[in-house]
């Protein structure tokens, strides 16, 4: 994973203030999802909890005690927690854990519901950018929207960026510098990059802080992308994003 080197604006090596607990019916599933999410966001504390043990043997299910322990470890580490489950009963287990926690702890935990793998990745990337609890939870929940249809590269035009309407709102066109296009890993690099700026950045009108909105652009290598930004750091953010896209987002 090259993302750690590419992170700009984030504090590399610092653990994000929001951690994740991924709860699945099988430990392999939980660990696998955690690995995928960690690859995108190495600085986020992610706990994988899966399976249900009877007499030392794993069977399919979720275990309230293990989930409670994992959530408590995150809270004790000073991190707020987003819990994601793979199937209904994992979500029920997470809800019960909320009920078992002290109110002061429960107030720092969210169980947003959302697709397991996509939600984990979206939440991890958002958390890596230093986002707060509700924002990370929303990222997991909103990850379901990626099945609502893909945007196409080039769909966003300069007109959509509404020249001059908001101060600092200018768009710049840039050619995507890697060969494989804006797939998950480079999208995550980009999302983490913009999180470091006090600015709202869009790429072909897609919000750049959302790894899935970026992936929905389905931009191939060499695609021409329109970058716009508004906010106090708009200029610096846009320049950083343009430079990162041109250089291939850590890929060739």
């Amino acid at each position, binding site marked *: 994973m090259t993302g750690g080197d590419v992170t700009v604006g984030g504090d590399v090596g610092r653990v994000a203030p929001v951690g994740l607990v991924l709860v699945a019916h099988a430990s392999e599933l939980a660990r696998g999802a955690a690995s995928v999410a960690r690859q995108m966001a190495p600085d986020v504390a992610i706990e994988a909890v899966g399976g249900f043990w009877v007499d030392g043997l794993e069977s399919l299910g979720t275990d309230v005690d293990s989930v409670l322990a994992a959530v408590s470890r995150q809270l004790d580490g000073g991190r707020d927690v987003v819990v994601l489950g793979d199937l*209904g009963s994992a979500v029920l*287990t997470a*809800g019960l854990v909320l009920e078992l926690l002290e109110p002061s702890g429960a107030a720092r935990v969210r169980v947003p519901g959302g697709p397991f793998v996509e939600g984990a990745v979206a939440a991890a990337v958002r958390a890596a950018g230093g986002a707060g609890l509700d924002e990370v939870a929303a990222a997991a929940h909103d990850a379901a929207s990626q099945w609502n249809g893909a945007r196409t590269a080039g769909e966003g035009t300069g007109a959509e960026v509404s020249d001059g309407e908001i101060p600092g709102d200018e768009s710049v066109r840039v050619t995507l510098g890697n060969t494989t296009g804006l797939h998950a890993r480079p999208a995550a690099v980009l999302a983490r990059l913009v999180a470091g700026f006090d600015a709202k950045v869009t790429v072909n009108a897609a919000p750049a802080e959302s790894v899935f909105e970026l992936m929905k652009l389905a931009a191939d290598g060499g695609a021409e992308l329109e970058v716009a930004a508004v906010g106090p750091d708009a200029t610096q953010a846009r320049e950083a994003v343009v430079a990162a896209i041109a250089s291939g987002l850590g890929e060739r």
Partner: protein
Amino acid sequence: METVVLSVTWAIDWMRRTAVLVAAHRSELSELDRKIGDGDHGENLARGFAAVVAKLDAQPQPPALVGDVLRTAATTLMSTVGGASGPLYGTAFLRASRASSRVELDAQGVVVLLEACLEGVRDRGGAQVGDKTMLDAWAPAAEAAARVAAQGASPADVLRAAALAAREGTAQTAQLTAVRGRASFLGEASVGVADPGAASTALVIEAAHDAAVAAGRWAA
């Protein structure tokens, strides 16, 4: 019979009888679950309630309050029942324990207990009546209990009404289409099979009634 209140001894006996009843219907519950779920409901619950009994047996002193017994049941079920029924029964008994911090329960206390279970299951699962879940047994049970208690019935008669209503509610789930849990993936194909969670709920309440009848015999 009318003077009987339900004590901590009743609560412990309720758990014992539930363990026996669920174990006796283990295959039947798992068979229902095999048709519309993952087929382990009977095994999971039998294991869970056996663990509850073992936990109660291992306590050096009998608990002081009815709610203490139910809290032991709640935490043990959470840790020993996999699947959705662990958190659902865990929450039901956790809420019931909070609502029963008393030495003994009268008829109204039984109603409060059942309503707490109902509320717990509803909050945890987010289902509504008619969704083909255990709520379709808890809801009519709590309703029947409140109705009968308002007429001045004894705790045992309140539980009898609740158990019958839960059984009737379970039978009716066979006509329903599942919209919650893994059974919902079957859609219309779930029609014709009763909900296993409702079926086990009916057994749990039946055991509560059996224990209340036994308590009345001892008192007589």
